[in-house]
């Protein structure tokens, strides 16, 4: 079976044979870095065109269809446009913070790539606290938004940043609690072990209703955490023009834009890993033939398929629902999601102890 691990191993062997260990590690890091950056760019391009097409079809429009076949290269053209645009820094802005903010957003998004298993045995860094790492690092995202809002010297930006702060801090809780539900079931924080525990079935199926509730809570919470509609109060176009990135233009704006999409990808990848079995193929109990066919589909396709399904779900939300108000947003978290996910976690814990799952 064709697998990424073979490629990675052969590269590693070739490097070890030709260079001393220090150089090997440096070169491998450079390769990984380049791979992540190119994945980044690719994801940006793919997700932007996907969002535009999804929104267009839901809005009974044709969507972009001029650049390339069926408009597939539209986002390349957009990128070109943004690249040649002037990156304006407003006069009263705090220049250092203003210019730093989009890069922090990018760095956070890149860091989050580390523990994600893209395919079988294809992972940058399988650290033993992978899930914890993800939820910890993703909180840094709010810093960049706050920074951008503050440094812009614009009241709209500031309000957007403040909203985003309140929002991310509160939704982090229920996202964390629903992640914990999986961790409790698995007994490990390591991403590879979580995936391995789903060899005989994905958690969303194995865990009965509580896991389904955890999954739904997770999706809602991460939608809020990535500032996507209906929780896009940080940008809230009709209220705050563009919220925290009102003053950004050109490539700096593009970085925020890209970071948003990459964040969406990452949270969906986490969701797919935790609840939908990561790269694990879909198996049904004792149907050996069916399971065998499923195994033939490469693991990377399984992973990306699940992730993109979740991304589509989040886009579906965005293009269907109106935006919440700030107090309703916090009500939803503190009155509904948090109590539900807490009780849910208790039930999951009881289930895990009593072994009430497949």
């Amino acid at each position, binding site marked *: 079976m064709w697998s990424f691990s073979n490629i990675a191993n052969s590269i590693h062997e070739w490097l070890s044979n030709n260079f001393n260990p220090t150089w090997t590690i440096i070169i491998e890091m450079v390769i990984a870095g380049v791979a992540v950056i190119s994945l980044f760019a690719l994801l940006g391009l793919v997700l932007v065109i996907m969002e535009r097409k999804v929104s267009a079809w839901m809005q009974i429009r044709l969507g972009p269809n001029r650049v390339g076949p069926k408009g597939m290269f539209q986002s390349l053209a957009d990128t070109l446009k943004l690249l040649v645009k002037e990156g304006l820094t407003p006069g009263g802005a705090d220049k250092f913070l203003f210019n730093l903010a989009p890069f922090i957003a990018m760095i956070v998004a890149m860091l989050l790539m580390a523990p994600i298993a893209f395919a079988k045995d294809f992972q940058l860094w399988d650290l033993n606290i992978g899930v914890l790492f993800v939820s910890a690092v993703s909180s840094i995202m709010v810093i960049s938004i706050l920074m951008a809002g503050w440094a812009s010297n614009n*009241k709209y930006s*500031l309000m957007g940043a403040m909203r985003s702060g309140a929002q991310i801090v509160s939704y982090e809780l229920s996202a964390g609690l629903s992640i914990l539900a999986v961790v409790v079931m698995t007994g490990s924080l390591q991403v590879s072990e979580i995936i391995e525990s789903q060899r005989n079935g994905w958690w969303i199926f194995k865990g009965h209703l509580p896991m389904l509730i955890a999954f739904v809570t997770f999706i809602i919470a991460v939608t809020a955490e990535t500032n996507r509609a209906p929780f896009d109060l940080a940008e809230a176009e*009709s*209220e705050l023009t563009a919220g925290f990135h009102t003053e950004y233009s050109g490539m700096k704006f593009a970085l925020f834009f890209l970071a948003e999409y990459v964040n969406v990808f990452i949270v969906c990848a986490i969701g797919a890993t935790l609840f939908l079995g990561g790269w694990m193929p879909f198996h049904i109990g004792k149907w050996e033939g069916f399971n065998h066919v499923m195994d033939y589909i490469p693991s990377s396709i399984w992973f990306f398929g699940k992730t993109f399904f979740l991304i589509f779900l989040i886009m579906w939300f965005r*293009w269907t*629902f*109106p*935006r919440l*108000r700030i107090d309703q947003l916090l009500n939803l978290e503190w009155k509904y999601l948090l109590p539900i996910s807490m009780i849910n976690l208790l039930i999951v814990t009881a289930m895990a102890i009593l072994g009430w799952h497949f």
Partner: protein
Amino acid sequence: MEGFGEVLKMYRKTEIINDSKAPPAEGFGEADMIINVGPQHPATHGVLHLVITLNGETIKNVEPHLGYIHRSIEKMCESLSYRQFIYVTSRMDYLSAHINNHACALCVEQGLQVEIPPRAQVIRVLMDELTRIASHELWLGAMAMDLGAFTPFFHAFRERESINDIMEETCGARLTMNYMVPGGVMHDLHPSFQQRVKDFMQLYKSKVHEYDEMLTGNIIFQNRMKNVGVLSAEDAISYGCTGPTARGSGVSCDVRKLYPYEIYNTLEFDEVLETGGDSFSRYMVRVREMQQSIRIIEQLIDNIPEGDFQTKTKAVLKLPKGEFYSRVETARGELGVYIVSEGATTPYRIKFRSPGFSNLSVLNHIAKGSKLGDLVAMMGTLDLVIPDIDR
């Protein structure tokens, strides 16, 4: 939100941008700030400029600054003849341009004492109601977009476009039709008019439940609209609100019912009244009003009398000395046209009592104490069309 206030206080010390010469609103506190919504802002749908005093997210005062699209149509009309000035009024409330023209034509006819042929009356009413539906469709989409739901905007445009196609075929233009002339209408109906209106009604009926699914029944939408911007009936009257804004508060003010013009007294339709007075009531009034308009069209579309579509009037119109006032129900409320004539070929003074101007004045009253996000819902349900306000 204690910390929020603190941060804002710090921020406020750095710079206050306030282009208003207004004295700070009463009780302008340390932690308050002033933001300018507009003249370029996605939610104002035009060049409305609101100076908002905010405490955190809570609105303390809203002060509209008008005039960004003031063309002084009233002054312009003083130099235009009675045939010419009608087209200018299309540019006031451009979403119900047809009804604006209707008001002017009525006023001139009142002065000339001409009888309108029955066919022309029916055509006018049909066009009015189509315009009303088109206007409400656009409002529905734009308001949903203000609240963050982008998709209904395009769905609402689908229906609106089919009305625009009908208009284009019969009147020759999609938005500013200038179809009314003193004495009737400019052209006869297009031969395929009836069929296309029937097609449109079929389309409308097959799609109308979608808005209930996507907006009316949606829990987020309801939460955003209910108990937001509550306007009591007394305030609605005192502030001079008309149209769906006032009817949402239970004030009966439909000109078509109270002071019927053309053939409205022979038609069967209900004046839509809601008693809530909040944004959701105003929303429901407009949604239900569209159905009443469909009902009116259904009654008329198969019963268009034969005959002239225009009474022959003189080439140069002269109104007798005196004052004339006519009012119609536009999609936004009561539009009054007040002509003072000196017996010349041009009006001596024209006053347009535009519904938007009075409806806007209530904004500060209902917005006080609500959140910034609510302001958008309120502006949406007041259905402000800025050229109508500025004139």
